């Protein structure tokens, strides 16, 4: 526990730093609200001619989108920070400190992401409640959804860290971020739930880890927590697998680190 204390400290310092610039949050969440509003326009147009698609009516679809978008928009730009640190050589200043670089980044990432996700969900829920006058949330579903969203963000961190590590080999890692984001958009279930996909794509999406970042937590929020243990079990398995991959690649990448001068 004492070993983890320093990471909690990093977590709280990042949190305080984010709060210090809360003006940024307010504006960002205003636009998140706007985002929800615009998508309500899209789904309103779509559902004007039908009551339900694959078991999702207008209300369910908007709440689902609000949850996926809340998680999606909560991610800080870790890949860019890592890219800058690797290219400039500044990474050595963190490597020689008495903490794990991976856990250092994890603490920072999660601090920013959780704060943003929490405010996104509060702003989004209030807005949707004002528009729709209905709320599918239950206490159990919310608790289980939050636990699953935490694990989803952890998995998201691992992918972002992997993309950040690509800076050891590639000059610019933004292409990887774009591609990764689009995996989340599609087979991750950001815009539409996996139920909308043709069966062959749905089958493909179900063997990929991306559904555990957005789709699975959002479904838990919506369903009141049904199949909670099955979902978080699979999330934990994915986190273990990708943690091992990240650690292995990080160690290999460090061998390529070449810092000259001081």
């Amino acid at each position, binding site marked *: 526990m004492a070993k983890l204390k320093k990471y909690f400290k990093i977590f709280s310092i990042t949190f305080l730093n984010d709060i210090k610039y809360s003006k940024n949050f307010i504006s960002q969440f205003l636009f998140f609200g706007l985002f929800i509003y615009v998508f309500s*326009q899209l789904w309103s*147009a779509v559902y004007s001619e039908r009551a339900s698609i694959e078991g999702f009516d207008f209300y369910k679809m908007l709440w689902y989108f609000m949850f996926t978008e809340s998680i999606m928009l909560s991610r800080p730009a870790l890949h860019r920070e890592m890219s800058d640190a690797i290219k400039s050589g500044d990474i050595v200043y963190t490597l020689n400190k008495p903490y794990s670089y991976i856990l250092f980044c994890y603490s920072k990432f999660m601090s920013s992401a959780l704060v943003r996700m929490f405010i996104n969900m509060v702003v989004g829920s209030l807005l949707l409640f004002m528009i729709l006058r209905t709320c599918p949330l239950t206490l159990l579903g919310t608790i289980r959804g939050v636990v699953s969203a935490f694990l989803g963000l952890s998995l998201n961190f691992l992918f972002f860290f992997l993309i950040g590590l690509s800076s050891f080999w590639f000059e610019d890692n933004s292409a990887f971020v774009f591609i990764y984001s*689009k995996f989340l958009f599609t087979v991750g279930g950001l815009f539409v739930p996996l139920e909308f996909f043709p069966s062959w794509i749905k089958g493909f999406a179900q063997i990929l880890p991306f559904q555990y970042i957005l789709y699975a937590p959002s479904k838990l929020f919506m369903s009141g927590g049904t199949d909670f243990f099955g979902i978080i079990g699979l999330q934990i398995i994915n986190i273990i697998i990708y943690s091992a991959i990240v650690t292995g690649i990080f160690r290999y990448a460090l061998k390529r680190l070449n810092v000259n001068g001081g």
Partner: protein
Amino acid sequence: MKAFKLMQSIKTFRLVQSIKTFRLIIRYLKFNLSSQMEYRGNFILQTIGMVINDVFLLFFWWILFQKVGTIKDYGMNEMLLVYSITTFSFGISMTLWGNQSLISRMIMNGEIDSFLILPRPVLSHILVSRLSLSALGDLVFGFVLFFFSGYLSLLNFLLFILLGVMGAVLLSAYNVLFHSFTFWYGDFTAVAEVIPDSIITFSLNPEGIYTSVSKLIIQTVIPAMYFSFLPVRLIKEFSMVSFLFLLIADMSFVLAAYAVFYKGLKRYESGNLISKKI
């Protein structure tokens, strides 16, 4: 007579300045292009990455149209046209003026210093000093997609190119406008990154879904109307009035961006960071 000569010399001075700025842009383009081509593998990866990115976005609409047929008179063909004009404009804008999405960070890090001491207009110099070749994928994607949109004709093609350039200028102006708020609000990077992205998000939808308030938003705060929908309308059915309206709207954003940036620049506080600019 003296006043006339003074006016003439001012005009000549401005013309010389414009030519010099244009030359600077060309030289930056050549320099940045050669420096990016130093990492060919990376360049190819970035370009392919952006194309994949765009294809994935179309995938969403394919899924949706499979389920619902059309949305407010928009089918897959109309969405292809929306995507082609949007990605083409985005590609031109980001490729040529790659620093537009980094202005906020540059202000925060005190990186404007190196531009202030050089004898060229600061804003245009900042914009052209980075070439984002990853956006070349968007440019190529948008260009190629136009041929599959079902609206291909010689006139439409020429119009598509012109509207693409106008959209690129609008997007850059919009980016500059919002990033310039960093001069007033301190660390504005998070918002400055989110807002310009929103113009793309708003643009990549059928126009008909926007009604009342959201229609007003896309005509003002997030000008997707002038970036995507009006150009699409013009390609589908050209109207000189609409074209002139689009031109005025684009110019308004350019002037606003210019004014806000230079007003903000007066508030710029240099950092003590020592950096070099090659």
